[in-house]
C-alpha cells in the first residue's frame, strides 16, 4: 500500500509506478497504454513521461542528446547543485553521459566478462546449496525471503570484498534507494548519508589492506593516468551493490513464482537441462525486473509530446519485452523461444554491466532449486507480494514443497 500518494485514477494522465495496481500487476496497465497513448504522462514526481512500446523505449535508450542519465531512479527529488554534475553523476557510470560514460564503463567492463564471472560460480552454487539445506525437512517456506534474496547480496558482497556478515544490512539500504522513492527528500538524504559512511569505512580498510576484489580494483583504477576521486569510487561501489542485488533477487523470485505455477515447465527443465540457458532468457524477458529512468536534457517534441528539460522519463524495459509488435505472443512464457531479442538488461550504451553475473546467478539458483525441489507450488497465491518502484519482483513468496530431488 502507498499512503503517501493518492491512488491513480487514469494511468494515461496520472501514472505512478508505486501505485498499488501497478505493483500488483503492471502488464494490463501497459497493454492499455500501448493501445491508448503510447506515451503516458504524470504530474507526479514533478512531471514524468512513460513510453510503453519496444520502439519508443529503444529510441530513448539510444538518444543521449535529449536524455541524460544523471539520475536513473525517479523520486520526489531531482539531482541538485550539490550532486556531482553530468556527465559524471552520483553513481558512475549508470548516472553518466557520453563521452565520460564510455571511459568509466571501459574501466569496469573487464571485471564483468564471462571469464571472471565464471570464477564466482562455485561460490554461488555452494551458497544456493547451503540455503536450500537450511530448509531441509520443511513442508514449505518463503522462497523470496529464505532463498532468492540471499543469493545476489552474498555474491556481490564477496565480489566487492566486504565482510559476509554485513550482507543482511544491505537489504535495508536497497529498499531505501529503490523502493522508498516517495519518502520526503530530507529523510532520504539522511539515510543515504549512512550508506556513504559504510562505503568510506570500506574504502579506508581496502586502502590499508588491498586485496583481490572489486573495491581494490576501483581504488587502483585509473582514467587518463589519474586515480578516481573518492566520491567516484564510493558512487560506483554503491551502484554495484544496489544494481547487483535487488534486481537479481527479483529475477530469481519471479522465475520461481512462474515455475511454482507451471508444472509442465518444471518437468521440461528437469528432462532437458540443455534448455536452461534459453529458458533463463525467456524468464528474463517475461519477468524483466528493471525499469530505468532518464531526465529530459532539453525541451523538445517527442512524437507530439512537449518534453521539458528536467522532466522524468520512466524507461520500462519490462513493458518493451511484452510488446506484441516486438515479440510473438509476448504474455506467453515459452521456455524454448528461439527468437528473443529481449531488453531485460537494457539497450545501448548503458546495457547492464552485470548481465553475465545476473545470468549466472539466475541459472545456478534455478538449477540448484530444481535439483532439490523439482515439484513445488504457491502455498497461497494471494500471499505473494511484489516490490514497489522501478525493480519488480516478489518480496513474499510462500511455497509448498510437493516433491524432493536426490
Amino acid at each position: 500500500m502507498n499512503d503517501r500518494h493518492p491512488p491513480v485514477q487514469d494511468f494515461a494522465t496520472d501514472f505512478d509506478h508505486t501505485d498499488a495496481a501497478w505493483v500488483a500487476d503492471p502488464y494490463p496497465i501497459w497493454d492499455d497504454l500501448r493501445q491508448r497513448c503510447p506515451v503516458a504522462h504524470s504530474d507526479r514526481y514533478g512531471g514524468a513521461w512513460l513510453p510503453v512500446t519496444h520502439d519508443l523505449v529503444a529510441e530513448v535508450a539510444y538518444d543521449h542528446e535529449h536524455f541524460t542519465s544523471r539520475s536513473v531512479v525517479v523520486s520526489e527529488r531531482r539531482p541538485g547543485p550539490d550532486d556531482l554534475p553530468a556527465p559524471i553523476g552520483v553513481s558512475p557510470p549508470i548516472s553518466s553521459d557520453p563521452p565520460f560514460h564510455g571511459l568509466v564503463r571501459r574501466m569496469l567492463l573487464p571485471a564483468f566478462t564471462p571469464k571472471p564471472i565464471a570464477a564466482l560460480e562455485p561460490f554461488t552454487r555452494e551458497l544456493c546449496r547451503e540455503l536450500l539445506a537450511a530448509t531441509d525437512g520443511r513442508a514449505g517456506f518463503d522462497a523470496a525471503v529464505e532463498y532468492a534474496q540471499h543469493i545476489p547480496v552474498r555474491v556481490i558482497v564477496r565480489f566487492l570484498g566486504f565482510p559476509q556478515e554485513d550482507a543482511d544490512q544491505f537489504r535495508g539500504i536497497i529498499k531505501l534507494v529503490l523502493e522508498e522513492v516517495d519518502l520526503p527528500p530530507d529523510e532520504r538524504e539522511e539515510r543515504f548519508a549512512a550508506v556513504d559512511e559504510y562505503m568510506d569505512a570500506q574504502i579506508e580498510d581496502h586502502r590499508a589492506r588491498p586485496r583481490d576484489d572489486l573495491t581494490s580494483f576501483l581504488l587502483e583504477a585509473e582514467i587518463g593516468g589519474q586515480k578516481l576521486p573518492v566520491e567516484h569510487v564510493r558512487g560506483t561501489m554503491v551502484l554495484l551493490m544496489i544494481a547487483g542485488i535487488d534486481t537479481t533477487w527479483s529475477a530469481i523470485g519471479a522465475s520461481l513464482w512462474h515455475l511454482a505455477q507451471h508444472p509442465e515447465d518444471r518437468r521440461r527443465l528437469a528432462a532437458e537441462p540443455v534448455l536452461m540457458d534459453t529458458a533463463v532468457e525467456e524468464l528474463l524477458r517475461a519477468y524483466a525486473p528493471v525499469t530505468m529512468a532518464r531526465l529530459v536534457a532539453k525541451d523538445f517534441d517527442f512524437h507530439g509530446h512537449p518534453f521539458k528539460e528536467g522532466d522524468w522519463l520512466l524507461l520500462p524495459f519490462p513493458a518493451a519485452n511484452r510488446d506484441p509488435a516486438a515479440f510473438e505472443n509476448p504474455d506467453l512464457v515459452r521456455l524454448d523461444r528461439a527468437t528473443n531479442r529481449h531488453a531485460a538488461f537494457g539497450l545501448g550504451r548503458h546495457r547492464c554491466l552485470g548481465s553475465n553475473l545476473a545470468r549466472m546467478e539466475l541459472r545456478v539458483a534455478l538449477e540448484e532449486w530444481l535439483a532439490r525441489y523439482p515439484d513445488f507450488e504457491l502455498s497461497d497465491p494471494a500471499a505473494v507480494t511484489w516490490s514497489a518502484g522501478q525493480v519488480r519482483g516478489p518480496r513474499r513468496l510462500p511455497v509448498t514443497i510437493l516433491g524432493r530431488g536426490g
Partner: protein
Amino acid sequence: MAHATFRVHVDPDKCQGHNRCYSVSPDLFDLDDLGMSSEVGAGLVPAGQLSLARLAVANCPEHAISLTEAPEAQQ
C-alpha cells in the same frame, strides 16, 4: 551445385556486449577484454553451424549481427 557459404559479421558500433551470440554459438564469435563481440576469423559459417548463426542473429538485442551469403559462393 556448390553449397552456399554464409558469413556472420558483428557491427562493432552496435555491439554493446550482451554476449548472447557468444553464449549461443561460441565457435562463431569471440569476446575481447571488454566483452565486446566479433566474428571468429573472416566470419565464415561452417555448414553444420548455420542454424547457430541464425540463432545468434535472432537473439542480439542490438540487431548488431548480420548473416549474409558470401559472394564467392554465388557462382
